[in-house]
């Protein structure tokens, strides 16, 4: 790790103020992706603003079907929250399977989405849930928030403060983990909600796309006809624009999208 200056922010406003100081400032949430990247010297911020001690970023609010998760809420907290489990168990289940227990104790939802690792789990949930990302400056629809590999709509100094969504009638997440890193090699979040009073099926795929998380029109079409695992059987997902590496070819990932979608749907219906 290169030398750096550490600053601990006491509030969101304080963090924004601190961020104006350095030349290459990064916000530090749980640090579960950032610190490993810094250790291998792939990331070299001059200054780190620690958001880990800001009370206003923590906590989960559930009101009816409306869910708000503070950006500083850890994966373990999301996984364990009973109110959330009652309205949207798919998100609890997703959080319970991010990384390992020690990672879940530190990693946060805000950090995960702000980093937008193409193999992270939360982006699939947010996109499929048509969630809103709340920042200190504005509200951004998930579809507009994730803009590419490790790229988001966040501007310099902007901080994610919360994630908001309406719990759908049904949702499920299933991922195929990279055998080595255990990150999602292909993860699919299916959700059956309502839009403009009509059924609205959304299927988002993480870990597979060359440009990060994306919606699978093919599977959405199949599930819109019938929200059932069997409906996904035989659907062809194009391998174009899917990643290819030593662990998975694009063709394999395309096949996994279908298999994971099937299993996620089965979970959503269970």
């Amino acid at each position, binding site marked *: 790790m290169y*030398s750096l200056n550490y600053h601990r922010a006491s509030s969101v406003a304080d963090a924004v103020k601190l961020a104006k100081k350095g030349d290459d400032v990064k916000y530090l949430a749980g640090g579960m992706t950032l610190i490993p990247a810094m250790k291998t010297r792939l990331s070299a911020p001059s200054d780190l603003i620690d958001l880990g001690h800001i009370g206003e970023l923590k906590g989960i609010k559930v009101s009816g079907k409306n869910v708000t998760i503070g950006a500083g809420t850890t994966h373990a907290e999301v996984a364990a929250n009973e109110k959330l489990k009652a309205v949207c168990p798919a998100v609890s289940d997703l959080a319970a399977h991010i990384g390992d227990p020690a990672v879940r104790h530190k990693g946060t939802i805000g950090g995960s989405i702000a980093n937008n690792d193409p193999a992270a789990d939360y982006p699939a949930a947010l996109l499929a849930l048509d969630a809103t990302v709340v920042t200190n400056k504005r509200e951004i629809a998930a579809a507009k928030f994730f803009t590419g590999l490790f790229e988001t709509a966040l501007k310099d100094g902007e901080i994610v403060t919360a994630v908001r969504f309406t719990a759908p009638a049904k949702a499920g997440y299933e991922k195929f983990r990279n055998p*080595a890193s255990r990150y999602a090699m292909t993860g699919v979040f299916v959700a059956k909600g309502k839009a403009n009073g009509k059924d609205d099926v959304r299927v988002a795929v993480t870990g597979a796309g060359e440009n990060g998380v994306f919606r699978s029109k093919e599977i959405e079409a199949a599930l819109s006809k019938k929200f059932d695992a069997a409906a996904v059987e035989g659907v062809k997902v194009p391998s174009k624009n899917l990643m290819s590496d030593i*662990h998975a070819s694009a063709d394999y990932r395309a096949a996994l999208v279908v298999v994971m979608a099937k299993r996620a749907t089965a979970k959503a219906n269970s």
Partner: protein
Amino acid sequence: MGVEGIGARVARKEDRRFVTGAGRYVDDMVVPGMKHAAFVRSPYAHADVKKIDVKAAEAMPGVIAVLTGKQLKGDGIGNLICGWMIHSKDGTPMKMGAWSPLAVDRVRYVGDAVAIVVAETKGQARDAAEAVEVTYREKKAVVDPARALAKGAPQLHPEAEGNLIYDWEIGDGKAVDAAIASAAHVTRLHIVNNRLVPNAIEPRAALGHYDKAEDHFTCWTTSQNPHVARLVMSAFYNVAPENKLRVIAPDVGGGFGSKIFIYPEEIVCLWASKRTGVPVKWVADRTESFMTDAHGRDHVTEVEMAFDKDNRITALKVDTIANFGAYMSLFSSSVPTYLYATLLSGQYNIPAIHANVRAVYTNTSPVDAYRGAGRPEATYVLERTMETAARELGVSPAELRRKNFVTQFPHQTPVIMAYDAGDYAASLDAAMKAADYAGFSERKKAAAKKGKLRGIGMSCYIEACGIAPSAAVGSLGAGVGLWESAEVRVNAVGTIEVLTGSHSHGQGHETTFAQLVAQRLSVPLDTVSIVHGDTDKVQMGMGTYGSRSGAVGMSAVFKALDKVEAKAKKIAAHLMEADEADIVIENGELKVAGTDKKLPWFQVALASYTAHNLPAGMEPGLKETAFYDPSNFTFPAGCYICEVEIDPDTGVTEIVQFVAADDFGNIINPMIVEGQVHGGIAQGIGQALLEGCRYDPASGQLVTASYMDYTMPRADDLPSFKVSTSNTPCPSNPLGIKGCGEAGAIGSPPAVINAVTDAIGDNDLTMPATPLKVWTALKAATRH
């Protein structure tokens, strides 16, 4: 002795310090004035080094020195060597290219060290290492061993034309060809044994300390054999004469072979300590470990096995190319020759065997012994071939093996080895029973109903441990003897210290060696201490590898105990005015049989040290040394059965059961033996399903350089194992021990792949059988 002696399931004495965080590993060592090192390493697989500019680095904060290969050479530090001479079939000696601890003119693999930075902190050393400006001229690289032999391939060493290190053979080629020509059936296979990275969880580390006042060096290092390290660093690398060099290998966090070898870093740290006047510590990070620890396996083999009309094997022909990487590591040359081809008879009667082995240089990390070393490669070749032959011949894999088993002992194979004892059918039967082999077809049907593909595979392995005798290995080219030493000290207060040349880095010697002493001298386990890993404390020894510590190391202790016992009996007889032949050892005492006369150990020991009343002419003291050189290898053998269930949608293989039935001869501590088997199986399953070291074929970059890309077996990748042992004692050592450290890694890969190929019906699958490969194979099959 029931609860603490031989055969008892004693909890380990060493564990208290490990479970409380009190273990002492090299990185835990602190010496006053100690500074930290970072190595500047080549980012290229193959390049000429045109210039090294250290000015900017020297000016960085905290930097004490930046040293290069030129300075190292100037100080007379020697090149690294391979200590086992192999001659090609044309009689010429192996072609060893120069390996400087710091590269001077040329780098030959990604990670090759070119300079060392010594600084106040590790962070500063790394910062400065990045500031060393090395001008490289990149050359074409080659990583594939077959391509390295092709015309026009990039050439690594001027000493080795065509990158060929040796072209070696064993056996009777004519007899084999004749048998193949007249065979009723020939099974042919192309077999790849994938390259592995050992990955001991403790990264390699070295702390070099030069004491100017004494003109003396101390090296703390992560070594499996500190004495050999001292010998080699003194005799070949000119670091210091042996009497001026102390090597300490304290607690070592796993080795699996990778910590046998003497690496550039410990040599450079010692030298740098003298150059800078400060103690220098280096600890590898994981990526450095991936790049620079000696890798394992990496063979490509063509095999032909001939059968007569009764399905008896008539001949075996093997042609192997072994990838040695960029340099010849310490014992590399012996691995694909005497540790591989000599085991190609397996558990079978094979009248004629011929093996040809070509060793080649490539632009990859050096390759050397890794758990099993040669024997896993031999077992994989044989057991994949046997399983394939059974499928081709339409007979039961178990019965084809059984029909060809060696049943008479001793048995002379056509490839040097003389098997002394064994009961291969017993292990096969035990494994088949434990696995409910007969019930497999029902389980397969049940799995099919769930949409899963179920397969079963077996492997009957034999291996050779405790490589010896020294004269024999010397005649085969070994540069060292392979005996072991022990010293047993019965202290004046009756406590006992055993000094052994074996080294424990997980094997539990502090417990098993003590169990032997407790048994023999009839004393409590707590009174026995085992001392190892320090050249200043322990007489010369050869270290721990090749499952040799039980069979060879403990046999040395056994011999020293014989001497201690004989002398103690003489003293006791003298003190109790009895006949020496009447003295027996029981309950911690020396007794006169048939009487109530007795003396506790401490009284005998005290008498030996006060020397007030010893038999006439007897030297004082009760301390004996023995060097034990075995008369033969030992031959552990066994049968492993693996059953898998494959998810055809994802290609994921789940191991639903894994059975191991081993014959290790006599066992000192079954709990520790089982632990060794579990660990070996995990590494074997790792090789078969998960682990594969990959280089980019064009650039020679290491693609799998961290746990992000190299798949380490984790808890949820593995099942609990069903292990059992049978025990035909080894006749060639006094304890009847065969060795158990490598069996799991040797026997398991073919069992797993035989199961996977059985499940999917595609015999060409290579290791590791990743989900991607299995899915791809299944997809290709449905397309046909």
